């Protein structure tokens, strides 16, 4: 059953099982996206993701199928994250040790740790656009609808973000080469 069928079931029959299926299908992308936005604060990211799904349920009748359900969820996630950040609910810098603890159970822990650290070198719009483009695989047009930024700005955030990351990665590679 695809997203549209599941959404129709939730709207017409208030089918909780169908909504659970939607949560199962999309939690991977939304939780990862929020982990990137929070620069590795997994607990906060999961709390936000939970609320994103509740909001999606509440607003499901306003979902228009002109964008994919995933894009729609990402836009809810992004707006909710901005809102919470503006309210200053949690502005806690995750330490390297915390990151290590969070990712230790995961198979690619080292990589996750490195990526979370990399995200801190980017501004929030760069982090958002780059994650949506490269990690979530959204088109530029979809990123525009999620972030409500002009297309040119989205493209320049992606380009600038990539350049910054390449610079950081090169610098860390050089450091590793120099170190005995």
């Amino acid at each position, binding site marked *: 059953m695809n997203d549209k069928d599941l959404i129709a079931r939730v709207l017409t029959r208030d089918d909780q099982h169908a909504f*659970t299926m939607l*949560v199962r299908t999309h*939690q*991977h992308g939304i939780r990862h996206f929020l982990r990137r936005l929070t620069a590795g604060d997994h607990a906060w990211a999961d709390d936000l993701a939970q609320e994103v*799904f*509740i909001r999606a349920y509440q607003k499901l009748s306003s979902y228009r199928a002109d964008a994919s359900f995933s894009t729609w969820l990402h836009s809810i996630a992004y707006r909710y994250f901005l809102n919470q950040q503006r309210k200053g609910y949690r502005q806690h810098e995750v330490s390297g040790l915390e990151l290590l603890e969070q990712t230790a159970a995961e198979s690619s822990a080292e990589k996750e740790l490195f*990526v979370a650290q990399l995200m801190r070198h980017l501004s929030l719009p760069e982090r958002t656009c*780059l*994650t949506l483009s*490269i990690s979530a695989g959204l088109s530029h047009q979809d990123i525009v609808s999620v972030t409500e930024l002009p297309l040119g700005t989205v493209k320049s955030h992606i380009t600038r973000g990539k350049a910054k990351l390449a610079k950081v990665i090169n610098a860390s590679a050089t450091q590793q080469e120099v170190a005995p």
Partner: protein
Amino acid sequence: MTAHNSNDSLEQLLSYNTRLVDDDFTHRVQAQLARHRGRRRRILTAGGICSAAVAGVLLVVNGHKIGGSIMQAVNQSPYLVTLGIVALCAVTLWSWQKRV
């Protein structure tokens, strides 16, 4: 390293490697949703009971006057009253349809 290669490796690095799907998260969303629906149901019920109570009190205290003024309004402009009732029903139905 060429620009193309560096782009590829960046994409590989930033891709979501670990599969983030666990039942615990799903259950937490379900539980929060159930709490939310319960709260809404309680609010709606309380609102309904309050409205019924207020209407009941008004009817008991001032029943003749209220009945009289309603009949007067119906006699004076029956279409307007019908339209009002239809609009009220439509709004109620619409808000119920919104569910949450």
